[in-house]
C-alpha cells in the first residue's frame, strides 16, 4: 500500500492511523495475530482486516471504540511524536502552493528530519516526480529509509545520508535537475552555493529556506543574493485553530426581574430577610465557580444567576437557554514556527 494512493478496504500489512482521541492518533501496520492496546480497550488486528477505511471498531466487549483511518501526509504529521522540529501543515501547505509543487516536480529537501514533509512532497509530485532528500543525522536517516519503504514512497523518494553543507547535493544514481528546493538547515547559506550543480538550467527554480531566527534569515538573504537568486522574500505563516463554542445569552430583563423579586421579598419583613441571608450564604458556599448557576424552572426561569435554591452546572448549549454561537482558540497557541525565505533562480537563456 502507499500513503499516496487511496484504498477502500484494510488489508494485512497496511499502514493505518488509529484514531483513539483527538490528541492521540496512532499509526500501526496491520499484522495478523497482533493486538492494539489502548486505554479504551484491546483491539485485535484481525478484526480490522477487511473493514472499510474510516470504519468504527468496537472492542470485543463493546466498551470502547476507535476509528481506523487511511494515512495521509497530514495525519502522519499529527501522529508524530515531537522528536524533532516538524514542518506543520500551515507551513508545508503554503510552501507547496507557493512553489507550485505539483505532479512531475523535482524537489530537493535538506534535511529530511522527521520525514513528515517528505510525505507531503511525495503526495504532490506523484509517480512522475521525484524527491531528493538529505539527512546528516545517521539515526534519523535510517528511520526515514525504513518509513519511506513502509509507506510506499520508494518510487518517488531518494534518501541520502550526507551533510549537504560540506558535501553538496550531487548523487551518482541520477541527474537531479531540481525545480524546487526546500532547506531546513541551521545554516542554509553553507548549502546554497552547492545548488547550482543540481538545479534545472532550463526553467525557473524555486527555493524556500526554513529558519526559526531572524539572524539566520539575514544571512540566508545575503547568500541568496550573492548566489544569483532573485525575488527574495521573507514570509511568516500565522495559523490558528478555532473551536466552536456556545456562550449563554443572559438578558438584562431577566436580571432586573430577579432583583425586583429580591426587593419584594426584602419588603416582606426582617424575619424573611434573615432566612434569605442564610439561604444566600448557603448558595454561595455551594458555588464553586461562575458556571455553577441556578436550576431554574423552565416555566418561569431566570436566565441569569438565581440566588435561591441549589446550584447546578449547566452544560454548554443545554436546551432551555439561549446561546451565542462563538469561537475560541485553544488556551495556548503556536505563535511561531519558522520564517520562510523564498527566492527564484531563472536561467538566463541565450536565444
Amino acid at each position, binding site marked *: 500500500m502507499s500513503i499516496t494512493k487511496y484504498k477502500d478496504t484494510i488489508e494485512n500489512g497496511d499502514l493505518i492511523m488509529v484514531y483513539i482521541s483527538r490528541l492521540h492518533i496512532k499509526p500501526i501496520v496491520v499484522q495478523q495475530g497482533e493486538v492494539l492496546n489502548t486505554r479504551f480497550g484491546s483491539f485485535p488486528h484481525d478484526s480490522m482486516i477487511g473493514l472499510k477505511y474510516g470504519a*468504527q471498531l468496537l472492542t470485543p466487549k463493546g466498551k470502547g*471504540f476507535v476509528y481506523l483511518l487511511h494515512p495521509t501526509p497530514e495525519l502522519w504529521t499529527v501522529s508524530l511524536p515531537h522528536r524533532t522540529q516538524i514542518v506543520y501543515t*500551515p507551513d508545508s501547505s503554503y510552501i507547496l502552493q507557493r512553489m507550485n509543487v505539483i505532479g512531475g516536480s523535482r524537489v530537493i529537501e535538506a534535511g529530511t528530519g522527521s520525514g513528515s514533509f517528505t510525505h507531503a512532497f511525495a503526495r504532490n509530485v*506523484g509517480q512522475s516526480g521525484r524527491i531528493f532528500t538529505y539527512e546528516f543525522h545517521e539515526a534519523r536517516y535510517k528511520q526515514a529509509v525504513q518509513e519511506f519503504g513502509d509507506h510506499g514512497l520508494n518510487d518517488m523518494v531518494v534518501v541520502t545520508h550526507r551533510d549537504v553543507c560540506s558535501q553538496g547535493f550531487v548523487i551518482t544514481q541520477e541527474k537531479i535537475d531540481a525545480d524546487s528546493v526546500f532547506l531546513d538547515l541551521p545554516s542554509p547559506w553553507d548549502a546554497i552555493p552547492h545548488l547550482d550543480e543540481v538545479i534545472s538550467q532550463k526553467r525557473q527554480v524555486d527555493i524556500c529556506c526554513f529558519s526559526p531566527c531572524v539572524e539566520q534569515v539575514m544571512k540566508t538573504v545575503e547568500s541568496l543574493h550573492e548566489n544569483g537568486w532573485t*525575488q527574495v522574500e521573507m514570509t*511568516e505563516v500565522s495559523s490558528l485553530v*478555532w473551536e*466552536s463554542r456556545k456562550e449563554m445569552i443572559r438578558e438584562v430583563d431577566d436580571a432586573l426581574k430577579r432583583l425586583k423579586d429580591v426587593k419584594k421579598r426584602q419588603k416582606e419583613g426582617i424575619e424573611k430577610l434573615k432566612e434569605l441571608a442564610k439561604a444566600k450564604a448557603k448558595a454561595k458556599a455551594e458555588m464553586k465557580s461562575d458556571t455553577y448557576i441556578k436550576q431554574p424552572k423552565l416555566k418561569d426561569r431566570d436566565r441569569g444567576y438565581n440566588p435561591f435554591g441549589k446550584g447546578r452546572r449547566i*452544560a454548554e448549549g443545554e436546551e432551555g437557554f439561549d446561546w451565542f454561537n462563538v469561537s475560541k482558540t485553544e488556551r495556548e497557541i503556536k505563535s511561531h514556527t519558522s520564517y520562510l525565505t523564498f527566492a527564484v533562480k531563472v536561467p538566463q537563456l541565450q536565444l
Partner: protein
Amino acid sequence: MNSSFSHEKGIIGYDDWAIITLPSSATKIVQMRKGGSISLGKFGTFKVDHIVGYAYGQSFEVLEGKDVLPLKSISYGLDDTSDTKDSTPALEFQSSEDNRDLLDTGSKVQKITAKEIEEMKKEGGGNDVGNKIIERIVQGHESFEKKTIYSQEKYLTRKQRKFSRRFTVRNMTPSNLLNHIRKDRDPNKLMGLSEETLGLMMSHANVMPGGNYLLMDDTGGLLVYAMLERMQGQGSITLIHENDQPKLVLLNRTNYSEEELYNMVKPINLLEFVDPGDNRPTIGPLPKEEVDSMPNIRRIKYLRRMKKVKQLNESLDMVEARAFDGLIYASTINPVTFVPRIIERMKGSRPIVVYNQFKEVLIGLSHIFLRDSRVLLPNIYESCVRQFQTIQGRLHPLVTSIGGGGYIFSGIRVLPIEGAVASGRRNKKRSCEEREERNKKRQEKEVAAEPKDDTHL
C-alpha cells in the same frame, strides 16, 4: 504527461496565457499571440516574438521599436543591479545624516513640471527615457540632498516604479492567478480566498493524482484549476453547480484544452446530485443507423450531446456508489444545511474541507459536526502569511497588506456503526476527554513550576 499543466510550461511559448509584473508591481494577464504586441501602457509596448523562448520568470527591459532586453532581475533603489547596458549609470549625489533640515512642503520642492515629464516621455520608447526622467527629477528636487540615504533610496525606488520600463513574465500558476485577482482586481471575486488558505485547502483535502473529488466552486474556477494542476490528468472532479452550467470563467485564461477539461471536470447540478435516480438523462442513445443517416450538423450536435450525457451518467454513477475521495466546498449556499447531506456520498476516511470568507458561517457548521459522529476532528482553521521587506538593514514586515483570506472547516468523514454509539453530545466528543488530558498536562506543569502552598488567588 500533458503540456497543458503549468508545471511543464518552463519556457514562454506561443498562445500561452501568462502573467506580467510591471514596475509598479501591478500584474496583468496576457496571451502570447504570434506576431502580436503587448502594451504595458505608460511602461511601453513590446512584441511577443521577442520574449518567446525565454524561461518563465525572465525579466526584460522595453527598448526602442518594441524590442526587449533580457534582465537578470528587476531591482530598484540605489543598488539597482540589473545588468543592462542601456541603463544610465548610477546617480551620484550627496545625502544627509538625518532629516533635520528637511521641510515637508509637498510638491513645492520639485522644480521639474509634469509637462516637462510628459514631453520627455514622448521622446522615445525605451527604458533609457525612464532613467533620464528619474535623473531629471532627482536633479530637480530641491531638497533631495537633505534627505538621508534611506529616504533617498525610498524616493528613487518610488520614481523607478513609476517611470522605469521593466517587466517580468510569470507562469500562469494557480498562485500567480490568485494573487493577480486578489491584489490587482477584486478579492471578492474569489470569495476573499488567499494563497495560503488555498494551499491549506489542497493539503487538508489531500488532493493528488487519481483522487475522485466532489467540488463546489464559487471562485470562478480557481479551485478547479488548482486541483487540476495537482491531479495531472488522473482522477476526476465532480463539480456541483446551481445553474444550467458551472461558472468557470478563469479556466479560459489557463492553458487547458476543452478536451482535457472534459476528461477531468464533470459538471452536475444540485438537483441531479441530490436526487441522482430521478435525474438520469433521458435522451438517446439512438440506433446506429439513425445516427448515420443524420445530416452532418445534426449528427455533430447529437454526438456532442451524447458525450455530455455519458459524462453526466458517469457522475451520477459515482454519486449513487458514494464513491468520492474528498469534498471541497466553496459556495455561497449555506453549508450548514447542505454539507451534512453531501457527505453521505463520500467514502470512509476521506477529508471534508469547507471554505468560507466568514468564520461566523463556519461556526454553525462546526457545531453541527461536533454532535455528528460521521465527522472526526472537526475544526476551523485560519492561516495568514505576513510578508517582509528584506532590504538589508531595513528588515520589517510590509506596512500594509490585504486583509482577510478566509477560513476553512475541515474534518474526516468516518463510518460509525449504526446504533453502537449515541450520536455523541458535544461534551462526549471533545470537552470531556480532551479537557481532561489537557488539564492534566497543565496541572503537571504547574505543579512542577510553582509551589501551591502560599498562593492567594
